């Protein structure tokens, strides 16, 4: 029988970039055009298979509004992964993302898997953040990178699959390397093929 592993995951990023929409698409496969801003954080779970394990994502979808900024440590504390979301049509939101990367590096858990998601890629015609720039940045910090569209259900599953693959399996040091890396300055990033 598969082991169920609880993995805490937090979503960070500027207000209005679509954090809740990504989670809603991932967990409920649903998109709502008018959702109200999150207060504090919302909590949802979803279990996905990964090799011999089942990953139960405990997802803390944090509020992007500035007044809740100070609460963020409660959500990234103990997290196995952080998804930092920006809006490809808003350059500002990419700047905010960089601040989150910095904060995680300074105060976040040491082995946290970081994923960068450029959301709203269905609005390519009003894009402000070039894909290459974001991708290069992600590479420079050894983070997962993906552009998503919560509205059109593009790459949302993939985002979480990539995270799953980055999580080192329990009691199994035998691993082969994968396309993305952990944020830490530690030795060889390791992961294992699964799913």
């Amino acid at each position, binding site marked *: 029988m598969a082991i*169920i592993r*609880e993995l*805490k995951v*937090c979503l960070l990023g500027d207000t209005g970039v679509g954090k809740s929409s990504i989670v809603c698409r991932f*967990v*409920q*496969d*649903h998109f709502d055009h008018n959702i109200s801003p999150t*207060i*504090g*954080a*919302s*909590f*949802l*779970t*979803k*279990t*996905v*298979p990964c090799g011999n394990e*089942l990953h*139960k994502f*405990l*997802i*803390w979808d944090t*509020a992007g509004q500035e*007044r*809740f900024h*100070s*609460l963020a440590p*409660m*959500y990234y*504390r*103990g997290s196995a992964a952080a998804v930092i979301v920006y809006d490809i049509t808003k350059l500002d939101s990419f700047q905010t993302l960089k601040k989150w990367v910095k904060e995680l590096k300074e105060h976040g858990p040491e082995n946290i898997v970081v994923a960068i998601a450029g959301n709203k890629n269905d609005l390519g015609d009003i894009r402000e953040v070039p894909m290459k720039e974001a991708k290069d940045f992600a590479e420079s910090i050894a983070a997962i990178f993906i552009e998503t569209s919560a509205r059109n259900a593009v790459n949302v599953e993939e985002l979480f699959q990539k995270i799953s693959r980055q999580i080192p399996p329990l009691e199994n040091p035998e691993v082969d390397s994968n396309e993305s890396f952990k944020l830490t300055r530690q030795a060889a990033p390791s992961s294992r093929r699964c799913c």
Partner: protein
Amino acid sequence: MALQTAEEIAEQMEESEDILEHDVQVSPAEEMPGDGPVEEESEQLFLPWDRFSAWLHCICVVGFDLELGQAVEVIYPHHSKLTEKEKTSICYLSFPDSNSGCLGDTQFCFRFRQASNIQPSLGCFLDRCDRDAPVCLKRDQGHFYGYVYFRQVRDKSLKRGYFQKSLVLISKLPYVTFFHSLLKLLAPEYFEKQEPCLEAACNDIDRWPTPTPGKILNLPIMGVVMKLRIPTCYDKPGTSQLVQSTPGDSLVSIVLPTIHEVDLFRCFYPVFFHIQMLWELVLLGESLVVMAPSPSDSSDTVLALVSCLSPLRYCSDFRPYFTIHDSEFKEYTTRTQAPPSVILGVTNPFFAKTLQHWPHIIRIGDMKQTGEVAKQMKVKKLKNLKTLDSKPGVYSAYKPFLNKDEDIIKQLQKGVQQKRPSAAQNAILRRYFLELTQSFIIPLERYVASLMPLQKTISPWKSPPQLRPFLQEEFMKTLEKAGPQLTSRLKGDWIGLYRQFLKSPNFDGWFRNRRKEMMQKLEALHLEALCEEDLQLRIQKHTEVETVDLVLKLKDKLTKAENEQLPVRAGTLTKLQTHIESIILSLPEDLQGILHKPATL
């Protein structure tokens, strides 16, 4: 005998793991939308703040204002209703009352009378939750609990030289351990991050599942998931069903093995030579006061006293922390009447004088300096108690009915010498009290069950038969053959203990509850008998007026059965509904219209 055997424990652990596994075993394909906090319950039933109010009445922040003294600074959610009287109570009860050196963080609990009776909008839903809860975990009618996290630290920037503030959860639920764990997560963050933190926490709580006994509940709060199970009244007493299967990361999730049990051994340690006598005093509803150096000591001890009767409910008033400002101060301390049947926990030295006339006083020293305490063997004379500085111990002239059980004392003492873990000592003590209470209560249960009329006396066409009355002498006679000697090796004046108990509020509360349950059972059996009848045949023999009367009566019964959730066999109510429909259809059309109306309105 006292401690569970290793097998039993292993068995329990297995059970609990099964439950846990079962709970989390959801294959991805079946993953429900909102697999998160919402599960099962139909969401549209709940208005905003309904879920919150199923757990909490409100959250208060109590601070110290140099001009006003203690004041409620914030009430969250802002629309929560508290009367001025209630606010005043909360203010005084949320701060340590003596100048005890409560430096740093302190947690304690208090209980106060509800000034007005506001029914929450989801009242009937809560009743259903309460029905399955053990008696001692039901919502407290008429009282609120206040769970306090008090912080006092030096702060030169403040005029008073100290930062003093309490975060207080107000609830009707007696889940002491749960709320204290919740506060441990919430309060330190609040003191640092202020209002957004409360806003986030309340928002989290408002998406929790309602407190339903028997289910494993996942409660996300402030970045952590609390996992717990509210016991049901059907659980085998003395078993805990939720254990942490694997050591987890407390930043991710926390498993609470209990939501309400206090550490009995720690609380009773200063007076543990007298535990059996204390059990008798609590059982008989005697006036008891606990004088302690701090509100956390007083509230822990009072809660331990109340819970040592479990599964029996302590029915009189109890105040884990009581102050001279309390609105019941006069009522409880008057010398013109005999002391009331209550348990008070106090810290103000003033009470040593005010309550000098009370028959039983427990004096707790500083719980941290426990070295010499265990030597205090003798019950002390009351006149020796002058001030709060008197020596720790039990001050009483009470002569216990039962002989002292030396074994439990020896067992605990041995544990102290061998440095047995506190959790194990607590388990021994809890088991001891459980067996004692059960030995005491089983003969009563047996006798009361015999008051139930025989099944054959239930006739569908007569009102349900009455319960036979409780006759004290008749009960006493049953003790010869079926008394506590069957389950307890303790000797002593059990008869005397029962006689005294029958006069106490605890018996009254217990018997009322039993009576109510049995009457509902009778109603249910009666209803089932009625459903088995051929009603069509019956109405053929009766006039139209009588038939209409029957329909109205049946409808009444149906409503009552639904409202009171009578313990009927599955399908009975649907059957009754069908009977009603078919009788109505056999009536003339004009009458049909009239009889159908109320149902569709």
